[in-house]
């Protein structure tokens, strides 16, 4: 099921891809439960509650860790999908773009959390 063209000759990068996909998946099992339950509780819409939640260092840290695992896992998964359904030279470019999007998303979130923590 996992078939990607990573361009290396001994397949080492493919193995690493497979491994990191599983590692991030295992981490995401408990983290997804944590995130979905907390997010469901936040959906009553109160701004004050939401800020209080994200100002707590434990929750903010856990959110960032969850996001890292999510972005790694998503990037690896998208790599497979792009390569399977698009393929070719375009695929390589799209995979790099998706990687950059993930980095951008992470940086924006860190900046938001820093702002929320410093402005209290």
């Amino acid at each position, binding site marked *: 099921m996992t078939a990607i063209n990573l361009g290396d000759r001994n397949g080492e990068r493919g193995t690493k891809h497979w491994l990191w996909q599983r590692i991030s*998946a295992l981490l995401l099992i408990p983290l*997804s439960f944590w995130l*979905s339950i907390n997010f*469901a509780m936040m959906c009553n*819409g109160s701004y004050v509650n939401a800020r209080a939640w*994200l100002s707590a260092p434990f929750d903010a840290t856990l959110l960032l860790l969850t996001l890292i695992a999510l972005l790694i896992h998503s990037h690896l*998964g*998208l790599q497979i*999908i792009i390569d399977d359904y698009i393929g070719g030279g375009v695929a390589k470019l799209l995979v790099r773009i998706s990687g950059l999007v993930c980095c951008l998303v992470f940086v924006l979130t860190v900046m938001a959390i820093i702002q929320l923590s410093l402005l209290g």
Partner: protein
Amino acid sequence: MSVFHRGTGIFLFLGTLMIVGWVLVLAIGPSAFDRYMELITSRVGKVLLFAWTFSLFYHLANGIRHMLWDLGWGFEIQKVYLTGWIVVGVSCLLTAGVWLLPLLV
């Protein structure tokens, strides 16, 4: 089932962007936050959120099924069907659970 695994994966990635958006509007300020919350709790928003929750638990349960296959377990055709149904059942239960939770607490 495996095309669903990929489909839910893509949908979940979009959901991640939705959650990140939530964090960003929280940092921007209360009025932006309120408008964002109105969007995601609208009729369409709630349907998408529900679909996102189901996608999450389906992808999680089917992912575990995949990892069991990695360990070499569960390839017999009866087990494939059984675990497939367990995945769907567990996804429905967990989705219902998470959605009922705010009402109970």
